[in-house]
């Protein structure tokens, strides 16, 4: 299966996962950290899961609170995230260099 299209919003989500790769994350927590609304965040998570880049798990926290869906990148997802983020950073760096060169 080919890799999904990596949008800037997807990169933001991947960035959060890469910061703490082994931690299971909640949807609301991700939404707050990436400043993405549910209507944007969940299609990204669904797409990543569809490409087997994301694993999901239901967890029960404490009484009265319904079980929550948690997410973590798979090893394949983590590799793709690191590559994509690296490429993105180098692109950003070369753009900055080009801009500073134009200024001087």
């Amino acid at each position: 299966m080919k890799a999904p299209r990596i949008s800037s919003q997807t990169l933001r989500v991947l960035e959060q996962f890469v910061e703490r790769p082994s931690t299971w994350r909640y949807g609301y927590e991700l939404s707050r950290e990436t400043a993405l609304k549910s209507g944007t965040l969940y299609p990204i998570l669904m797409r990543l899961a569809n490409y087997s880049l994301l694993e999901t798990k239901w967890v029960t926290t404490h009484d009265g609170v319904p079980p929550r869906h948690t997410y973590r990148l798979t090893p394949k997802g983590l590799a793709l995230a690191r590559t994509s983020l690296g490429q993105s950073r180098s692109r950003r760096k070369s753009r900055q260099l080009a801009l500073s060169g134009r200024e001087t």
Partner: protein
Amino acid sequence: MPKTYLRRFAILLLRAAIRIAPHDTLDWGNAMLNELSCMEGDWAALWWAIGGARVLTKHALLSIIIPGNHPRTVSGPGALFAKENSMRKATLSVIAACAAASFLFLLAPAFRQGFAVSQMQWHAMTTHSWPRSVSPALKTLEQQAEKTHDAEALAFVALRTPNQTESTRLADEAVQLDPKLVWLYATVAPKPSEAEDWIRKLEQWDPQNALPHFIEAENIDIAQALTGKVPQHTSDESPAWQNTMAAAFRSTKLDDYHDRLKALDRRVVAQHDFGDPYQVLEGECEPCWPSYLSSDASRYAKSMLESGEALEAHGDRKGALKKYLAVARFGQMMTPDGDFLMDRIFSLVVNRPLKENYQRLASLYQKQGENEQAELYALLARKAAQSEGDYRILARQEAAGDAVTRWNASLVEVSGLLMPFSAGLLLIWALAVIAKNKSLRLTALRASSGTLALGLSSAIGLLLSSAVLYVSYRPYAEIFQQFIRTGNDRRIPEFGEFLDYTQTPLGAHGLWNQADFVFYFWLRVSALCVLALLFVVIRHLAHHHRAATTT
């Protein structure tokens, strides 16, 4: 955390979205729902739910349009309409709600009136006889009026009865009951045998009015046209015509009794709750003038001018001035209020001899050294020349019609065709489903996916066409009501134009007009979209059938 109304609404919204979501997205739906319990702030929870519901709805729609897009759907690609799915009950509820909402429109009088107007295109296609038959509502009003000796209602019917014998009888009866209604003799078309008697009565009742003389002149014109003896020149006209036109030009006023007619119509419509706009406006949109009035007035004014010029050439300035002043006085009396297209056309015909007449008067007064009078008539001549140009532009614009009115009329006609079609289809569908299940309870009804799709399409079609009909016709119902309530007839010509368009069968006026072409273009695009959607649904159902046979 206590649940506020906003949070409850957010939960309900997401639950509703989960109900229609495909099975492979249920986990995600529940994930979004359960996150709500950990969220702070009700508004934040609501926005979260709205975003989530949007995602789930998109997936639900995609699962219908692209079969196989959700391969892990538990109940197969036909799940949305499948008998075992919760959507079956929801679909039945949607069909019932659409049908109920469509019937609710019937409570609005504007909608009922609009629907009746939309059906007039059929009337135009099926009625070829002339004179047209009287509408049942008008016939009922006539019977009531005769029973109760209601003079005004009889007059109202007489004005709208195409059969001359019948209209003469009704008008006579109305005038006998109420002698103040003699003006009816100027507005109702009489039997030829009664015409002369009616003119005499009118002349006696309103001796200063030019209208009876114009009616008499018209009768002479018609008689000449019928015998084929139409004079080439005005000077060849019979003495009777000359005398009656001279009397018309001597009159001090020209009253077509339109104000009386309008007041009578409003009273009768309000009293008898007569809601047929076609019948009401039949006596309203046209000025109540004889058809030959413009040409007779123009021809006579020209002949007066010619005789004035002849007198002037012989040095009889006093005699010429008398002729010119008679035409000028007539011109002032005839100045139209500009409300109706017919007024403008009339102005166009009569304005030219008037302009020439003012020029003659200006020149004559100048010769006599009366400069003030000469300037006044020169000014009037310039004004007449200017208004001739204005009237010509206005008449051309109004004859071309208004694109918005035409568009609205076409929308009303399309809705008027779709509504009975959808309602009929829905009725047959409902009867078939009830007969098959032998029950009237919603929960007990079972229907296949194809049957449900057909019922849903009919119900949505019925609701949409009802809404479009109501929205398109509502402004015209308001114009009509305003006319009945306040007598404001400023926009009645626009309404009259709209009614004229709705009498033309749909598609009959779409070939030569650019605005109509645009309308029919979009109508065809919409029809193609509906066909495409139908194709997708059929493909979806066929896929479902194949999946069912292979498992």
